[in-house]
């Protein structure tokens, strides 16, 4: 039943995503045309409409689903390995690192934009590696708390450098600012192609760890007494979550809140076992971000809201309602 509801939610989001826009394409033809493209048949849509569907709307919807699923799964996984409900995919400095990488590119290159995704990706990865090495230097006995503190330290340091570079190049502020707020913008399938391999690898690894994340919930010592190599599980999960987060940040900027709100909503509704939590986070996270993007591009059309603003503005009250109702019934 939970799977059906989650699947219907995602399907509704995807359909809404491709249908909503200035040009009315029609439900049936959209489905037929998408199917035709996938199996290689002739699309029933006119050339212009077909381009709107296949080059504009579908890539954007698919990108939203990949980014949303990735951020939600990474958030859930981070919450699991750190046993910290406030952990999100940016906990170990991925956001600050990506921000610094993006800022350096905007400030010091001609600004074609092609270099921005790889710079953000590299920045995020460097920051997380730095945090991990720093956290581990405190010794394994310090556990996840040392890693979280290292993440805070690295975040502050990278943010300081990013702000310094930004202040030296004031003309870049607007471009960097809009990138920091996050947006799904696509040029055909290019961005989807960038993130898809990372998302696929990450989802497979994270979902493979769903049972072990439950074991980690009983504490490092007890997990070890159950035969689990806790350090290795934590490292693998962090690596998998980080590469996908870095890829998501590279194509869509910093989209806040998805990694927190989606897993916690699911937790409140179906419980905290990662066997359900991780796969449902992927599905619901994907649908949530697609819906958020529909709102971002329609409420002030033809202008677009930054999607990070939408996820927080609509996500926070929704989460508050879920929190209230679940407390009452518990």
């Amino acid at each position, binding site marked *: 039943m939970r799977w059906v509801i989650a699947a219907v939610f995602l399907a509704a989001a995807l359909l809404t995503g491709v249908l909503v826009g200035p040009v009315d394409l029609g439900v049936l033809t959209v489905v037929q045309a998408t199917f035709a493209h996938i199996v290689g048949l002739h699309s029933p849509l006119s050339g212009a409409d077909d381009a709107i569907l296949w080059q504009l709307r579908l890539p954007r919807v698919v990108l939203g689903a990949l980014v949303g699923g990735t951020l939600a799964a990474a958030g859930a996984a981070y919450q699991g390995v750190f046993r910290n409900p406030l952990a999100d995919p940016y906990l170990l400095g991925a956001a600050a690192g990506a921000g610094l990488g993006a800022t350096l590119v905007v400030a010091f290159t001609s600004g074609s934009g092609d270099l921005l995704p790889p710079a953000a990706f590299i920045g995020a990865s460097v920051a997380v590696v730095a945090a991990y090495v720093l956290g581990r230097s405190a010794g394994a006995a310090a556990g996840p708390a040392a890693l979280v503190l290292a993440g805070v330290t690295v975040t502050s340091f990278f943010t300081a450098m990013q702000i310094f570079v930004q202040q030296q190049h004031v003309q870049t502020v607007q471009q960097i600012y809009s990138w920091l707020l996050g947006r799904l913008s696509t040029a055909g399938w290019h961005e989807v192609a960038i993130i898809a391999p990372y998302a696929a690898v990450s989802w497979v690894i994270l979902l*493979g*760890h769903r*049972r*072990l994340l*439950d*074991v980690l*919930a*009983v*504490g490092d*010592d*007890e997990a*070890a*007494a*159950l*035969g*689990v*190599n806790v350090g290795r599980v934590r490292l693998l999960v962090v690596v998998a979550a980080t590469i996908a987060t870095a890829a998501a940040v590279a194509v869509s900027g910093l989209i806040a809140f998805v990694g927190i709100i989606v897993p916690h909503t699911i*937790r409140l509704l179906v*419980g*905290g*076992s990662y*066997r359900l939590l991780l796969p449902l986070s992927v599905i619901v996270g994907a649908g949530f971000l697609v819906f958020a993007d529909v709102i971002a591009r329609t409420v002030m059309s033809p202008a677009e809201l930054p999607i990070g603003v939408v996820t927080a503005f609509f996500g926070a009250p929704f989460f508050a309602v879920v929190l209230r109702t679940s407390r009452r019934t518990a």
Partner: protein
Amino acid sequence: MSALSLDSLSVTLGGARIVDRLAATVEPGEWVALIGPNGAGKTTALRAVAGLVDYDGAVAILGDDAAALSRRQLARSLALVPQVPLIPGDISVREYVLLGRTPYLTYFGSERRADHDAVDVALEQLDLLSFQHRRLDTLSGGERQRATLARALAQDAPILLLDEPTAALDVGRQQQVLELVDSLRAQRGLTVLSTMHDLTLAGQYADRVLLLDGGRLVAAGSARDVLTRPLISEHYGAEVALVDTESGFVVVPVRGTIANGA
């Protein structure tokens, strides 16, 4: 072959010697209690046996050198119930007990029929079948402890390590837990090594007690041999009376016999 054999087991933490050349054996089916004052090294010794802290010396489990066993192999032989288990509140009792099957699963593997059967048996033996779909955070302290014991039983390990199984329980719950452990020991032929705070309970339930002080084994044997007024006075700094009852004897502190703040 002994179930457990500790040979010159020493643990040093932060430069301090916590366990000092401890030598002991536990025979199959036996219940041995580690007793001693606070800071004597009871829990650390137990954690060393479970492979959770580095140690010098040797631990043999059913004849095999523990240092040569993998984590998984170790977990199939020893089940540990910590003093204060970390309870993830938002999972169900069944999901929690299922974690006990971890040592039998491959890295990315999931449970099979046999694992669910083992969980059913453990839930049944601890009278938790009717609770199995409840969330852990809706259980009372005693029910949670039963859930933790069920998780340890689901591990199907021949040796059970219990760290202060009765801490923070009222007298009735203490008795229930210890009776339960004793009956499980009989049903499953388990060997039990536990740390115990309460000398009376240690004397009543354990076959043998090992008295530790300052990390060293200072006395070992039956409760009657170890729980003597001179030994308790020397190592606990307590003046006690020993009252014989039909089920063993009772250790009671005597008021007004030691200097205030000593």
